[in-house]
């Protein structure tokens, strides 16, 4: 009696909202082709890839967080915390911190562990105690930067650690290290989402938490895991940002980045209601926001006007998503 159709390779439906971000991106590239001098150059590509790397790395984690039906407002503060600890470690005289390779690995490790631990706190508040994600992470946002500034006593360190600077500014096979790192994280996120048990659980929780529970999905520990992962990625982003700036400034490190990252996820077509992570869409969202910033900057548009235009893009993206629902 049953009718079993052959496999369709394409999963999920396709609509304007899914492709909107790419259409907008192509439109912006075409605009630049005419309006921006020497737009098609390796230099331009390099600049944009490098500038979007840290945001993209964060946005991968955020896509998974949003897919569980949650949100993480605290990532900027987690970066500040990671920076405070890693920065303090960098300026010590311990010889191991200045050993080639080992030093930079230690810096990364410290940043990842610190931010990951605070991500774990988010996860515990949300998965363990059942707080609403927006409230829990808002708490960590407020407290986190405060703690970071206490640790550094509000001082601003200059980073002269060649390895950290090189990690953020150096190149490998013609592409910046940051871009490579971004590609690795994107690939890992795509793999997690497509074929891992973790990815499947994340989608199930965001799609219908009660049903996921009744199916035996470990809802609590998966939520704790996804916020911890988000924290770890904030640690990576912190080190990259420190390397670019050449300073550890806990008052500004990662400040307001959560807005850019969440915007990129939403623009990319991942609905905040959960259950539908769009990794590729998020990459497009980050690229779109980056290219928009680049375009506005290369045409000397004042920052205030630029903000307005970015806001319009984000609102338009969300409006498109609403249309899809109907």
């Amino acid at each position, binding site marked *: *009696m*049953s*009718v*079993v*159709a*052959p*496999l*369709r390779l394409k*999963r*999920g439906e396709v609509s304007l909202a899914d492709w909107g971000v790419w259409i907008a991106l192509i439109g912006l590239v075409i605009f630049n082709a005419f309006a921006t001098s020497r737009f098609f150059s390796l230099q331009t590509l390099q600049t944009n890839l490098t500038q979007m790397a840290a945001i993209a790395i964060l946005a991968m984690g955020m896509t998974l967080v949003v897919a569980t039906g949650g949100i993480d407002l605290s990532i900027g503060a987690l970066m500040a915390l990671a920076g405070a600890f890693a920065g303090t470690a960098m300026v010590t005289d311990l010889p191991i911190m200045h050993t080639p390779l080992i030093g930079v690995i230690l810096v990364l490790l410290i940043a990842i562990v610190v931010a990951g631990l605070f991500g774990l706190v988010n996860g515990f508040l949300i998965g363990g105690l059942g707080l609403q994600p927006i409230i829990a992470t808002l708490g960590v946002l407020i407290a986190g930067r405060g703690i970071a500034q206490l640790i550094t006593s509000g001082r601003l360190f200059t980073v002269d650690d060649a390895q950290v600077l090189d990690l953020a500014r150096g190149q490998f096979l013609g592409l910046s290290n940051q871009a490579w790192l971004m590609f690795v994280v994107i690939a890992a996120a795509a*793999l997690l989402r497509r*074929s*891992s*048990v*973790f990815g*499947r*659980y994340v*989608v*199930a929780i965001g*799609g*219908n938490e*009660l*049903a*996921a*529970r*009744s*199916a*035996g*999905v*470990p809802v609590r520990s998966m939520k704790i895991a996804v916020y911890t992962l988000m924290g770890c990625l904030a640690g990576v982003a912190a080190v990259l940002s420190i390397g670019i700036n050449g300073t550890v400034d806990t008052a500004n490190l990662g400040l307001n980045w959560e807005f850019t990252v969440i915007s990129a996820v939403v623009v990319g077509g991942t609905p905040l209601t959960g*259950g*539908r992570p769009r990794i590729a869409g998020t990459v497009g969202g980050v690229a779109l926001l980056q290219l928009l910033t680049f375009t506005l900057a290369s045409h000397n548009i004042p920052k205030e006007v630029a903000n307005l235009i970015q806001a319009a893009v984000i609102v338009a993206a969300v409006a498109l998503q609403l249309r899809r629902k109907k």
Partner: protein
Amino acid sequence: MAENIFLAKEPRKYGFADREAMVRGTRQLLERVGMGQTDPNSPLERLNTASQQMVAIARALSFDARLIIMDEPTSSLHDREVDTLFRVIRQLKADGVSVIFISHKLDELYRICDQITVLRDGATVLTGALSDLSRLDLVATMLGRKPEAIAAGAQTAFTRAEQRTTGETLLRAQGVASWPRLRNASLSVRSGEILGIAGLLGSGRSELASAIFGAGDLNAGTFELDGRPYRAKNPRAAIRAGVALTPEDRKTEGLVGIMSIADNMTLSILKRISRFGFISRRKERELANEYAQRLGVRMTSLDQPVKELSGGNQQKVLLARSLAVKPRLLILDEPTRGVDVGAKLEIQRIISDIADKDRGVILISSEMEEIAEASDRIHVLRDGESVASLDARSVTNAQIMIYMASGDVAEEEEVSA
């Protein structure tokens, strides 16, 4: 209540909602639906489902509606409440209001409807006076089959060759309570048998299922599974111990609507089809295909989102998910509710096949025939307490109903669990 009824069209006085006029208007409307004694100021959430239903009708009346469409209005009401609803509908009819009454319960159609329209696969197949149509003809029209073919088979599709109540005791529950509904339930299920649980709405049936499955609060009680102490702290632990549940409400508690058929079917057993945390697509396909074939899921592909399926096919996907964990004990909470007649027969057939010598089934249903015909034994709950455990072969529907409804008769024939 008044605020619900007048939402977005509050009577105004100096630009503010006129509370008095709202209360007055609400009282009039409530009288029309037989709830004249209810305080219009009390919050809606304090009313039971039936009364909420009436308030919804009152709200419809407040628009001076001349046509009210009721979509399965009785699905969560019990008999007495249905009577009240029907009284109100007749009154509405007398007042010149037309009603479109959508239901899958044939009895109700014959009690209340004048005209009937039958839809099948999204197309009208019949419209006419209901009095001209015999029940058999109606079912045949709904199924698109010949009346003789239907008459040959029984009303339900349970095919129990013999009663099987001799297996080893699989689950024993003692003094289970889950406040406020479930107060003191004790039962036992043997391997190979189907234990039906009968009880009115609110008697604690689903709460008992949740308690066994670790999905709800457990305030008291002990369980033994295979003679060993058992207590699930969450559904995950229950599944690991070999207990599976298909929840009553497929959409909100059962399935992840936006995920595909295959993804839903394998959600409970991802560990088994994955290595190093990564899912084997091939094993997943094989498994989902196997269950889709076995249960006869009608779909365009395994990748189709579950929310696009009909109720019956959704139920099959949910059954597949539970069967995939190879449970020792399977609890089915209202497996055929809101399912069309054809799929219902198929699901009933599947249920008969599930119980075997290694497995026990607890079947919860509001439908008397289903419980009576499927079960080997019937356990009756009333007001959250176990009142009887009956041999399904030697008991009539009327007797079961007396146990469900009132204590007087039941007390004389107290049967231990």
